[in-house]
């Protein structure tokens, strides 16, 4: 064996052992990830397991058209309309990351809501909230206010459930939390 091969053997040996370790279900086994600089050298390989995705998290939005913020809002509209899955997605799926980001943002908000139910108001300062709000605002040009909500949609006879409704935000101005409803609007 050459010196290079010995070095490679050592690197690959340690790398593989630590990758095996992080696959184990106990939290202390994930420790190597903490000290790994890239954050991606020890991937977890248990895709869709032990528990698969079983529901859709849908983001809906509505807006108040025109300059008057007290006017009636529109109906709720799906932020990511369901366009099915055309065959071309096998090769190129351009909106894959958009859908994933929206899903991830909504998921993060729900997790935060679960963890800190008493700090519901603070959610509007989080990155996922701001990303969703920015997206929704960009879809409603000329609107006085925009608002979004998160539904959990379990298929197979389960009704969709709204788990979070955002504040109503004036477009192109700061959040006016004092006069806005925190509670869900159905």
């Amino acid at each position, binding site marked *: 064996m*050459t010196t*290079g*091969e010995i*070095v*490679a053997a050592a690197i*690959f040996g340690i790398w*593989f052992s630590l*990758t*095996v370790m992080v696959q184990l279900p106990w939290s202390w086994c994930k420790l190597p990830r903490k000290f790994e*600089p*890239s*954050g*991606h*050298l020890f991937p977890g*390989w*248990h*895709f*869709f*397991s*032990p528990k*698969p*995705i*079983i*529901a*859709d998290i849908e983001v809906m939005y509505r807006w108040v058209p025109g300059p008057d913020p007290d006017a009636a809002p529109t109906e*709720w509209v799906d932020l990511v309309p369901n366009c099915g*899955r055309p*065959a071309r*997605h*096998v*090769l*190129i799926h*351009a909106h*894959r*990351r*958009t*859908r994933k*980001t929206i899903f*991830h*943002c909504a998921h993060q908000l*729900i*997790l935060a*809501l*679960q963890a800190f139910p008493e700090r519901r108001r603070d959610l509007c300062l989080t*990155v996922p909230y701001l*990303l*969703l709000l*920015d997206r929704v*605002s960009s879809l409603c040009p000329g609107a006085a206010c925009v608002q979004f909500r998160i539904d*959990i*949609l*379990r298929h197979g006879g389960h*009704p*969709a*459930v*709204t*788990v*979070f409704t955002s504040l109503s935000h004036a477009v192109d101005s700061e959040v006016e939390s004092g006069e806005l409803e925190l509670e*869900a609007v*159905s």
Partner: protein
Amino acid sequence: MITAAEATALTARLCCVARAICLLEWALNRREMRPGGVLNWSIAGLVDFSAHGLVKSRLEALTARLSHRAFLALLVLDGLVTTALFIFPANPILLGAAASLLLIQMKRHYLCYDGADEAVFFCLMALTVGKITGADRLTAWFIAAEACLAYLVAGIYKAASPFWKGGQALLLITRTRLFGREDVAKILRRHVRITAASEFAIVFWESVFPIALFVPPEVLIPILAVGLFFHLSCAWIMGLNTFLWAFGAMYPCVIFANQELRSALSPATRDYLSIGLLLTIGGAVALLTALVPRLRPLKNDYLGQVGELAPTAPATR
């Protein structure tokens, strides 16, 4: 016969295909990186990276400092590097550059990278280390072992899961809009036994994938063909298009490792090992499938988060 150099070169080229698809998707979807897009860095970059450890946070802070234009320039550079790497798959500088550029993209778009990106990054890093040290053989072995580990872990976790029973998981996944297809879900719902058998076949195939290192070529090729079919199905049904290329990239190294192992072992030993491994893992899967009780998701359950979601109101649609 495939040599280690050929196997690693093919792995690098298949990684390039995966990268090219991703870059094309970025190009088609570049509007999302501007204000109003969900990948708008002026908002996504507000996250506090300092909590991620010293080295990691510095890397992330460095990525965060890139302007939108600089990041777009890096994507163009990545396109050039990917093309060059496809032509010169053994060049360590190109391999290192491709890995670094992919890492920057994963850091920048931390909300939307997936397992395929991680698998490609893993392969590119391993190939870089292998080329720098001149250890093609070890690299091919390492990537083959990682492929076996990836499938084994995915299979065993599913076998031990109370949700991957009787076709339930397949049905649940295909019903969703994010990863499913309505037409496939309907078929699966109509043919419950076929659904249960397909689910068990996926779990079993994933779990016993490591036998690919020992089996004769007449068995190895079908195992890998099933793998390609599986990833192709995932692309068609779930929209996970880059997994086909990312995991397919590891297959040349699996073929190389199989050849080396079979030539190093006596016919009796390799047959005993194949059968022994198949029986051990297959038995474990069958046992887990039988012993772990099937569990239905709770009423308000989703994504594995069992808890009080405190629904505020039924949704009106």
